[in-house]
């Protein structure tokens, strides 16, 4: 078993290659640049291609172009670059082109705090591109998870023909820690469904094969059309309201119907807890410390960690809320997930937020202060 000491950003690059990523297009931006740097070095060694584009809009465009030729492709960016990518996140969602977008969150809005961590893009990840759409967003908490979860990100994008956002943060990106490379057998690599009908019968959005239609590659003998316009199952534009409704419903259903398979969460000392923290990314590490400290003082605190941010773990949180006195959401923003959590909790317990948007990570003592406010006395 091979062990490395590596940063989250490097682990993302290694994991992407393990997932079968053959194409990277990106634009330099702090604090994500190491992903590009590492892939510019490593991709040529495995026959992959790296290109530095003129901006983030072009980067995701090139990624989508590469993906349509059948290559697993990704980009990596941060705050302002993620804003620029929204246009093509929508195109990938509409054209159902698999791709992975890494967003190493930094302080915002605008250029904000380039070298400081944040989790201020969770709502942008959900609704940043215009129009109704579902999205998958994952958030790792360690270098180890950067490696394994980026493989999952590729798998989900391939399986559901959808863009997947990998929502990490500056702390996880730059923290160097142990990565144990999993052995081959423990890694599952998924590749998109390809058509088995003859080219003349192929329709790129044919729902007779299920809600995720097989996707042919440009250059594999299949000729077809992809557009960002509303289209029917043949891929050609339509403004027929019935067909539009069918398309938008299917784009939603293919994610929502499979949410149980997509939603990944983690628990820490939750079984007997009376009070739980909900956290993700770097903050989940501080939350774990807070749980241990609280337990020493006899407070039954637990941690519910979101690994999948979108689709949201609403069912799971609803379940937990039944046995909690309160839920504390800890995140590096001013409470972006609060209303989403509240609508899952539906008043069954108190929901509080400990949020920071000052460029510093939420600390265990920040969380413990909030715990005091709840006032569970033993």
């Amino acid at each position, binding site marked *: 078993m091979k062990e490395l000491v590596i940063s989250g950003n490097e682990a993302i690059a290694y994991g992407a290659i393990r997932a079968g990523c053959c194409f990277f297009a990106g634009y330099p931006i702090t604090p994500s640049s190491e992903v590009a740097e590492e892939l510019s070095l490593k991709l040529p060694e495995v026959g992959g291609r790296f290109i530095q*584009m003129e901006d983030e809009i072009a*980067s995701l465009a090139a990624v989508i172009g590469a993906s349509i030729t059948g290559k697993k492709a990704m980009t990596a960016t941060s705050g302002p670059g993620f804003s620029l990518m929204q246009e093509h996140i929508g195109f990938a969602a509409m054209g159902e082109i698999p791709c992975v977008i890494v967003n190493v969150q930094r302080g915002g809005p605008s250029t904000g705090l380039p070298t400081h961590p944040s989790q201020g893009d969770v709502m942008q990840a959900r609704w940043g591109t215009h129009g109704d759409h579902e999205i998958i967003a994952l958030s790792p908490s360690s270098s180890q998870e950067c490696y394994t979860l980026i493989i999952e990100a590729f798998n989900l994008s391939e399986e559901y023909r959808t863009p997947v956002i990998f929502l990490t943060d500056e702390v996880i990106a730059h923290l160097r820690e142990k990565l144990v490379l999993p052995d081959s057998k423990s890694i599952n690599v998924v590749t998109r469904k390809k058509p088995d009908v003859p080219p003349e019968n192929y329709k790129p959005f044919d729902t007779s094969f299920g809600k995720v239609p097989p996707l042919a590659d440009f250059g594999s003998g299949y000729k077809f059309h*992809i557009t960002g316009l509303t289209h029917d199952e043949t891929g050609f534009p339509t403004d027929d309201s019935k067909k539009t409704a069918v398309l938008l419903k299917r784009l939603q259903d293919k994610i929502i119907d499979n949410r149980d398979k997509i939603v990944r969460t983690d628990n820490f000392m939750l079984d007997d807890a009376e009070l739980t923290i909900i956290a993700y990314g770097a903050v989940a590490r501080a939350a774990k410390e807070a749980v241990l400290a609280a337990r020493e003082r006899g407070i039954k605190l637990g941690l519910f960690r979101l690994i999948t941010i979108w689709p949201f773990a609403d069912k799971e949180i609803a379940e937990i809320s039944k046995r909690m006195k309160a839920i504390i959401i800890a995140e590096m923003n001013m409470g972006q997930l609060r209303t989403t959590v509240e609508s899952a909790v539906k008043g069954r317990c108190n929901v509080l937020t400990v949020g920071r948007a000052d460029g510093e990570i939420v600390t265990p003592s920040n969380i413990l202060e909030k715990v005091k406010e709840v006032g569970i006395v033993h």
Partner: protein
Amino acid sequence: MYTEIAKSYLRKEKFPSVWCPGCGHGLILASILRAIHKKGWKKEETVMVSGIGCAGRIPGYVDFCTLHTTHGRALAFATGIKFARPELNVIAVMGDGDAAAIGGNHLIHAARRNINITAIVFNNFIYGMTGGQKSPTTPRGFFSSTSPYGNAEPPFDLCNMVKGAGAVFVARGTEYHLPALDTIIYKALSKNGFSFVDVIVMCPTSFGRKNKLSSDATQNMEWIKSISIPKKKAEGLSQEELQGKIVIGIFADSLRSEFVEYYEREILKEGKCPKNTKSD
């Protein structure tokens, strides 16, 4: 024969097209299709990418691998396709607003990179699809729905710009000079590197109407003819004499190592990706 060749590359069931009567887009498209035919490119190995606008709709009508993308970004998508799968023949068709305004940066970088893509601009000096607003190629003083007093800005000479950015083939043709256009586009497709063709074409609905030219296709052609001047002839003329004229011909035809070939030769260490995965 002339039109039959072009017809054999069309998705006939998609017609009638969205284009207005008298629009020159169909003529230019036919010229592109004849050039592709002459190249002998297989339909399933040819990719046509577009952005947004009246020219953006072209890929929907042709029987290739076609990608209708976002406004201005056709070349960025095309770059991904060509780099990922260099054996494909990749053409990007764009409008003037598409290529020169919102997509201007992608255009100059594709030229600088010298990636083997042919970019063809349907340059009608106007945003046709959105109702006739001025574009970066609208001549000074000309009218549009956003230059009701005449355009205050000087236009881009796209060929100059793209040549300056490093394209190995740069030419301009018009919808009037079709046999010459066929040759130019054929040469562009044959070039190994970034090739660029600026095609002057009439939008009778917006540009023609706003500038009191004509809604009649033949008269529009005559107008294009009257402002066109071959490069050879233009070389002897002063700036004043060239006022209001459009110079047509080939402006660059040079050699420079192509980006993907360079990458494969100098940077790529291993031929196939992914290797050693179960999925492959």
